[in-house]
């Protein structure tokens, strides 16, 4: 599903964010990205959604080299790869339902599809009872659920979560992790960048450890620290 071949990323200011990264993540897999701040996790995620281009090497998502995608093809990549951020990025003037439906509306779906899929996703993340609320009326965990729902409503094949529990308390973090695990069990590839050692150690999933832009450890049932 995701393949990085000899990928390096150097920013114009000279920072080497990634160096010679080789990586394959299969369809349906659950992979943690760990490493200290500035290790290259966020850069790697940006490369996957073509928010950045690799300086050298190839980034392949769903058998397509994202670097040579034409501008008109980028939206299709973005529909294939849903993203969730630490700061949720919800629209404050829209309700829960509207925030989720927005992703379908702006990708040109018909009204009945928008209604049905929004309803389905609301139920999946357990927020049907909060549909009419605005983001400011929700707890952090609920806001993150809305963000996850928005990322999932287009039925992406990959869900990328960039520190999804970074702003949440431990109990809420576990609720979010349970939700993400369920999403992965339904068949979506899940890549999660995190600093949360407790979660990584408890789940015993694949761990890809980045340090100074290089993969220093890649274990099938890994721990947060070696």
């Amino acid at each position, binding site marked *: 599903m995701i393949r990085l071949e000899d990928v390096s990323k150097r920013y114009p200011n000279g920072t080497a964010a990634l160096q010679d990264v080789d990586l394959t993540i299969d369809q349906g897999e659950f992979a943690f990205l760990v490493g200290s701040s500035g290790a290259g996790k966020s850069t790697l995620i940006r490369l996957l959604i073509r928010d950045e281009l690799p300086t050298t090497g190839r980034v392949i998502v769903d058998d397509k080299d994202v670097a040579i995608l034409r501008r008109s093809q980028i939206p299709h990549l973005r529909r294939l790869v849903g993203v969730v951020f630490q700061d949720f990025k919800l629209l404050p003037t829209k309700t829960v339902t509207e925030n989720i439906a927005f*992703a379908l509306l702006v990708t040109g779906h018909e009204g009945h599809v928008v209604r049905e899929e929004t309803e389905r996703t609301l139920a999946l993340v357990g927020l049907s009872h909060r549909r009419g609320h605005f983001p400011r009326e929700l707890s952090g965990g609920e806001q993150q659920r809305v963000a996850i729902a928005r990322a999932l409503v287009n039925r992406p094949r990959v869900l990328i979560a960039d520190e999804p529990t970074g702003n949440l308390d431990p109990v809420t973090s576990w609720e979010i992790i349970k939700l993400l695990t369920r999403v992965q069990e339904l068949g979506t590839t899940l890549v999660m960048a995190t600093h949360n050692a407790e979660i990584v150690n408890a789940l015993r999933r694949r761990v890809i450890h980045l340090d100074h832009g290089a993969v220093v450890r890649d274990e099938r049932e890994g721990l947060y620290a070696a």
Partner: protein
Amino acid sequence: MRRIAYVLGAAWQGFWRNPVMSIAATLTVSLMLLLFAFFIVTDRGLQAAVTALESKVELVLYLDDGAKPSDILALKARIENDPAVSRVDYITKQQALDRLRELAQRKEDFTLADIGINPLPASLEIKLANAQDTGRLAASLKDELGRGVVTDVIDNPTVVEKLLTITRVLSIGGVAVLAMMLFVALFVIVNTIRIAVHARRDEIEIMQLVGATDWFVSWPFILEGILVGTFGAIVALAVLALASGPVTSAMVGFLDILPVSLGANFVLELAAGVLAFAVLVGGFGASFSVRSQLAKGAHA
């Protein structure tokens, strides 16, 4: 249909999200369009006047009552040989008097007393292919004075020349003013849309993140620009409609002697022109600012 409805709704919301800015942009566009319309009307009117004047007699030679017909015909033939001349008509004394009587009948404030003898001279009326040659020909014909045939050379078409000068100045000046107004209108629209884009940058970021196409991201803004143009055109056309009565009568009064007509479809053409111009300016200005903003946002 869903897409169109979404884009229309978003554009409408966008227009009213920042009403002060939108209305300022609309009025700027209106002002530009009014100038544009004024320029077109004036240009059309003057052109019609020039055409009307050009089709009239341009040079008149008054002939001595005692001139021999053979001399007159020889002179006529000579003038006709000049390449700048399109036509020469011989007007007898009687024809001149008939014309005067006819004119007197049309004009209420003009009465012709019964006159025994005909005081009007016979004449040669010369029409030119090009009004600009009037001066040269008049100068050469002045040589005929005092040879017993020609008593006077009437160079009345200086009016044409003056009109031509006015039209030329107006064309250049009008285009310059119009270009400046176009620039200002574009600037205001580009800025209005840029502010709108900036205000919605979070929304745009999310749209791009969830895989909205550039079309979906940019068309609400382009349509918002077109909306500004269209509203501007409506305001300008309303002002024109209110002003057209007094302005037309003033113009007809000014150009009284000329059979000037702007054409039956002129008003429709003008309205369509103004609207099309406004839509183009609005759409182009908006798409320019959206494009520059999108280029900043997405790495393509």
